[in-house]
């Protein structure tokens, strides 16, 4: 027991907030650097490469296509399969390859977030497969994956109600901070990933909301405000990435 207390004390020793700046010099409502590129995989119907701070993820979308095994088919709508997978080299300590409890859960909640926007009923008996590989992880990889998957789905020409944009908010040293990096996630008090459905340049609804740790009602409201602001910034970048691919296609050819 004393050992555990010692560990807890050690945890609290790390200072995350310095005045109005964070450990890496960002402001409380500042995102990490984001780089998005659409259509990077030739064999996939839609794909996306995304960097969000030190996170690096690649998403690929296949379909709508036939579903195998057959018994998974749904005669009234398309089935959506989402696979979140971390590469063994994506974290400091080698991760054992293959699905684990955590990645199965993330795949499930992310799939449910995307199911809310994809117009499944247009493709009965078919399936849409989404694969997202985490090549490098640094907190908030599920949000990075959802952002990448959303761009890849648009790139694949899948009909959707809108775009999914995802962002996390953490509580570090008692302050709500946007888009936490690893230290804030590990040593902070709470971590709240959000995913929003954006339609007509407005945030329409929440597609995913998780929380670990504890926050007060007011803190949650503050988290929500920060997340909305961050999501709109990411949405702009997602849009730019897709535009860039398709505009350059027509510009370079005259």
């Amino acid at each position, binding site marked *: 027991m004393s050992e555990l207390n010692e560990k807890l004390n050690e945890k609290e020793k790390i200072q995350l907030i310095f005045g109005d700046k964070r450990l890496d010099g960002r402001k409380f409502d500042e995102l990490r650097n984001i780089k998005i590129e659409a259509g990077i995989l030739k064999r996939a*119907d*839609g794909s996306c490469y995304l960097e969000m701070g030190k996170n690096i993820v690649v998403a690929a979308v296949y*379909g*709508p*296509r*036939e579903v195998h095994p057959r018994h998974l088919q749904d*005669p009234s709508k398309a089935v959506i399969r989402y696979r979140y997978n971390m590469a063994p080299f994506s974290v400091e300590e080698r991760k054992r390859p293959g699905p684990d409890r955590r990645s199965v859960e993330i795949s499930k909640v992310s799939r449910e977030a995307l199911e809310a*926007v994809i*117009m499944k009923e247009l*493709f*009965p*008996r*078919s*399936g849409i497969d989404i694969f997202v590989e985490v090549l490098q992880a640094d907190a908030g990889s599920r949000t990075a994956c959802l952002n990448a998957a959303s761009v890849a789905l*648009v*790139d*694949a*020409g*899948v*009909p*959707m*109600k*809108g*775009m999914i944009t995802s962002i996390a908010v953490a509580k570090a040293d008692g302050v709500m901070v946007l888009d936490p990096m690893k230290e804030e996630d590990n040593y902070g008090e709470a971590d709240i990933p959000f995913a929003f*459905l*954006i*339609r*007509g*340049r407005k945030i*329409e609804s929440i597609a995913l909301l998780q929380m670990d740790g504890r926050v007060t009602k007011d803190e949650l409201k503050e988290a929500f405000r920060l997340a909305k602001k961050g999501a709109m910034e990411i949405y702009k970048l997602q*849009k730019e990435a*897709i*535009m860039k691919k*398709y*505009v350059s*296609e*027509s510009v370079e*050819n*005259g």
Partner: protein
Amino acid sequence: MRQIVLPGDLIATNPKVAGFGTYVENGKVYSKILGLLDKTETSVRVIPLKGRYIPSIGDVVVGIVREVSGNGWSVDIYSPYQAFLPLSENPEVKPNKKPNDILDIGDAIIAKVLNIDPKMKVTLTMKDKVCRPIRFGRIVFINPARVPRVIGKKGSMIKLLKSELGIQIIVGQNGLIWISGDRRKVSIGEEAIYVIEEEAHTDGLTDRVTEFIKRRKSDVGIE
């Protein structure tokens, strides 16, 4: 140039004008796919830039036979749904011939979509004069969203290719195009189709394709 729209972009406020590639919710029209906006006073639609082929009745398609059974053939038409060609819809069927003597696995065919039931079971027919088994020529695969451009306005582009090169072309709505004729001319035709696919939504495409064919013809040395 037309504006590119993404899923969820608000494109009109009058639900009566909603056309292809759009959906209506709460009296507002949104885009549901990535595409080019085509907006007039009476209609608004989104021309897709990407996406799989979704069969519709009456489409001419090029397909590959994947399975032969006692009552017909399963045909891959490069869409989310496998199509079926029943024996009764193939005029080559004779009582003394076995199905795999007429069409075998791997054979390519040009067929027409006869029917699609609500479960998206696609039935094909070959009882039409454009339908035939493909025994020679070449099949080119392009993005099915670009097929209307290869055909052109009222078939202008396809007429251009045929008359400039003197080759036979049949465009499947699913993005598979069958070309047959002189081998060198077929090669030029194939290249021209790739040019159309690449530059699908740019202005003056017909002129550029004409020029491209002329240039390639002089390169190869045919008039």
